């Protein structure tokens, strides 16, 4: 494996360039972008590849001294299991990606409580049936408004990921540039009034 090829940079790249390329790729394949996505395993593989490449380069460059990347930063922590034991098997089936079996098991259950709706929503979410998923999560939340798991699931449905938004040119709230430009404007205003906010300009 050529680590530079994995990171998409030339072997002459500076340390900063290496770090920048690594960060960019790590953001792209971050588990957050693949939550409830059937392709999460492929993204994880990519992530592993990138981590290995980055470690290799840093090791080569510092000729064997300590590696720069803190270990385990991007390991996923999405295994929650807070539900009732009656639905434990369904949860397991959903986690393993066996959605048809999970759906069958659920529809044969007579308990149509909040968790039932939540799990139904989770199955549809994995399938990419986003409208149905949202409907079921809404039901679960209105049946049990205090459950954090259900509320988080519904909240995630109401947003697209930051990575997608950034790539389509939509930023949420004030970006870095906004802060700078507001400071400059404030400085200009101050200068007009005889004062100065930023002495150097």
């Amino acid at each position, binding site marked *: 494996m050529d680590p530079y090829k994995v990171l998409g940079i030339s072997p002459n790249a500076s340390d900063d360039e290496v770090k920048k390329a690594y960060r960019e790729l790590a953001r*792209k*394949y971050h588990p957050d*972008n*693949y939550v409830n*996505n*059937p*392709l999460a395993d*492929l*993204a994880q593989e*990519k992530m592993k590849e990138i981590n290995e490449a980055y470690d290799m380069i840093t090791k080569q460059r510092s000729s064997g001294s300590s590696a720069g990347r803190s270990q385990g930063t991007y390991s996923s922590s999405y295994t929650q299991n807070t539900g009732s034991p009656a639905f434990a098997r369904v949860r397991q089936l959903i986690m393993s990606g066996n959605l048809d079996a999970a759906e069958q098991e659920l529809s044969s259950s007579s308990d149509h409580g909040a968790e039932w709706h939540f799990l139904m929503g989770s199955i*549809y979410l994995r*399938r*990419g*049936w*986003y*409208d*149905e998923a*949202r409907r079921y999560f809404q039901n679960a939340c209105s049946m049990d408004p205090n459950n954090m798991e259900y509320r988080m699931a519904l909240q995630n*449905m*109401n947003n*697209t*990921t930051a990575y*997608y938004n950034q*790539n*389509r*040119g939509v930023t949420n709230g004030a970006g870095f540039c906004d802060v700078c430009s507001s400071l400059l404007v404030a400085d200009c205003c101050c200068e007009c009034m005889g004062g100065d906010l930023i002495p150097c300009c």
Partner: protein
Amino acid sequence: MFGYVRPYKPEMKVRDFESFRAMYCGLCHTLKLRYGVGSRMLLSYDMCFLAILMAGVTGCGIKTCQKRCAAALFQKRACVREDLALDFAADCSVILTYWKLCDSVQDEHGMRVLGAKWGAWFLRRKYRKASDRLPDFAKAVEQGIHRLDALERENVPSLDRAADAFASIMREAAAGLPEEKIRRPVEQILYHIGRWVYITDAWDDLEDDLKSGSYNAIVARFAVTTADGLAEAKEAVRLTLLQSAQTAAAASELLDLGRSDPVVKNILYMGLPAMAESVMEGTTKQRSSRHGSI
């Protein structure tokens, strides 16, 4: 097909736009070569996207040549030469259009039935040729269209269930890819493009369907009866479309798309949201052509 899946030109580099157009012209010429002059009418942006995606995944679609454009006779345009991805997209165009027309013969009213009947008759021999070339895909499309038709007849109130029938048809186009690591992301892209197209089209047809009373997935899901009752539905539809686009985009990041990469990313990240916005705000219909060049 529909013509909704197209790039967002203002954010495109000139060379990316040119490679997109060369693929579009290439598909037009391939349709003519394989199915005769008349089949150029089947040219659509959606199938051009399929060609670009497949060219990226399989690494073809590189050689270009200059050819005269059928729509602007005095201009010569760069045009991708015959290759596998274009042949595939051309065959798919014929198969999908044929079954869509057969479906319209049963569902539509008045003059449109006549048009669809004539179209299906015109395509019957070309369809036979295409289905010999892609027998599995032709069979999958036939079954999928029947499934969709059955769901529409029983007036299914689930937007996702109806969209799934159509999206599954699109997903079948990736079934022939041998390598699993490539096939799965491509299947996900095509599934969500199909879902997105179905729902966008449903929104586009909303007013007509409300008037004529034919099945519309959005009307059935939100139980709307007049065009005024759409405010709540609009937000939900906008969100669900964005989520499909996002899922398709996330899948595309897992593929090595070579030269097609910038065009595919532009379409998935910016083209789809821009088109959805313009359909939902009702500005698409004012544009002169839905299928012609940008």
